[in-house]
């Protein structure tokens, strides 16, 4: 496989993982603009573990899942007390806090970035991404899929139907944080260098855009969104300087034709 194709596929795999990280809270009705905070926590914590303790990078990535689950679960309680636009603002603030903290942490290089020598190659990154997609498809074929949509549609009725609204909301937020952390760990160990500057709110907004573009109505939406956002700029490489202008225009065109996202659904269970 050519180096170019491989580098594009690595980005596709990581972006897909991240997209599911943003998708999970979004189907539960939460606009999480703090995805990059968990990406950063995942990247830095796994990097620190493999760098300082010589932990195998794959184990470090799995550790990042655990750490970000815990971090997500911890912030879910205060953050999910807010609703709608306030929830978006609270997660935005979380993003700033985490980014600012890492920039001031000299143990991981602070503002000068953090080299992560241990390497995870393309096959492992791809395997993780495939596992994530399969796990998500499976998850949305269980009662969780319809329950989490019910919670975002009508909290009151979902509660009266016996669903734990808070439980489902924090589960979705926590699982999303875990996937974001995994994406961060894979990025850190594939590209071997991370900078906190990258994990700002713009990063979070990009990931949210993957999901919105693909659509939140089917479990395949994030996959499509991540693919469009990763592959389209590459296909436009021929037009060099103008490619991001063309890319942005295409995104606007797609969103105006399909405001609910590229993929619409008939049922969680239909293909």
């Amino acid at each position, binding site marked *: 496989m050519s180096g170019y194709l491989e580098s594009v596929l690595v980005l596709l795999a990581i972006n897909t993982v991240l997209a599911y990280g943003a998708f999970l809270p979004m189907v539960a009705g939460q606009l999480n603009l703090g995805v990059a905070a968990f990406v950063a926590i995942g990247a830095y914590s796994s990097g620190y573990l493999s760098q300082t303790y010589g932990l195998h990078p794959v184990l470090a990535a799995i550790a990042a899942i655990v750490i970000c689950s815990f971090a997500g679960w911890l912030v879910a309680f205060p953050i999910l007390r807010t609703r709608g636009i306030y929830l978006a603002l609270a997660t935005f603030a979380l993003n700033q806090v985490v980014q600012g903290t890492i920039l001031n942490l000299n143990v991981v290089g602070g503002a000068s970035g953090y080299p992560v020598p241990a390497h995870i190659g393309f096959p492992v990154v791809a395997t993780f991404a495939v596992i994530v997609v399969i796990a998500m498809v*499976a*998850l*949305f*074929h*269980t*009662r*969780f*899929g*319809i*329950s989490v*949509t*019910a919670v*975002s*549609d*009508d909290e*009151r*009725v*979902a*509660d*009266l*139907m*016996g*669903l*734990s*609204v808070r*439980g*489902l909301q924090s589960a979705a937020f926590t699982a999303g944080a875990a996937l974001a952390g995994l994406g961060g760990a894979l990025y850190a160990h594939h590209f071997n260098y991370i900078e906190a500057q990258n994990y700002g709110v713009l990063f979070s907004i990009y990931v949210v855009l993957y999901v919105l573009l693909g659509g939140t*109505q089917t479990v395949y939406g994030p996959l499509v969104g991540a693919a469009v956002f990763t592959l389209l700029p590459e296909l436009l490489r021929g037009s060099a300087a103008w490619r991001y202008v063309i890319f942005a225009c295409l995104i606007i065109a797609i969103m105006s034709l399909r405001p609910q996202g590229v993929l619409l659904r*008939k*049922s*969680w*269970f*239909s293909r």
Partner: protein
Amino acid sequence: MVLEVRNLSKSFGGLKVVDQLSFSVARGERLALIGPNGAGKTTVFNLITGVYPADAGSIVLDGEDITTLPSRFRIRRGLARTFQNIRLMPHLTVLENVMIAQYARSPGMAALLQPVGFGRANRWRTEARAALAEAGLESYADQMAGGLPYGIQKRIELVRALAAAPRLLLLDEPAAGLNPAETEALHQALQAIAARGITLVVVEHDMQFVGRLCQRVVVLNFGVKIAECPVAEIHADRRVREAYLGTDELAA
């Protein structure tokens, strides 16, 4: 007694919406809760299902005091309801809406990971489809609930409530907005539900409908119970006429 409500009270701000209300419902009974607009009927349903906490009084379901039981556990005790303003989940299909209520019969949180989507023969999906078919709604099963006509949504809400296998079903204005043919079909459906041994409490303005369906009536006015009698005697009750039509003294 399936349901016993004792001295139930609820105020919003300074307004007493439900005041010292007591009534009980026997197993298999069909009770109507009637009263003028704003009498507090829906609030009574909201208190029984736990949408609001009660200020005072108690609610006993099948001998168990559920006054302080969190709302989400009440459906697991066999208490299901429909809503005055239909509340189906608009982004779920009709089938999925029905399946949401099945969760009330599952052992607990772990059931959230129950597969309900793989394969044609999934037990829960088959069951929900059969329930829709029984109500003559099978053709809507795979449509999104949000865009369906009002009358259809009302029927789906009833199927959804039944999917929780309730012993007591609270129906909030089930006949409102239905044409005579739909009202008749609803009457038949509710008779069939009652025949299965499910106790019904109905809030309804259509007195002809109430007269045919229910055995007993509790009348509320400004949150206070003003009458409780067999349905046949309701028209003879002076306080009820006054609540609806005003008093003779004032008119004179």
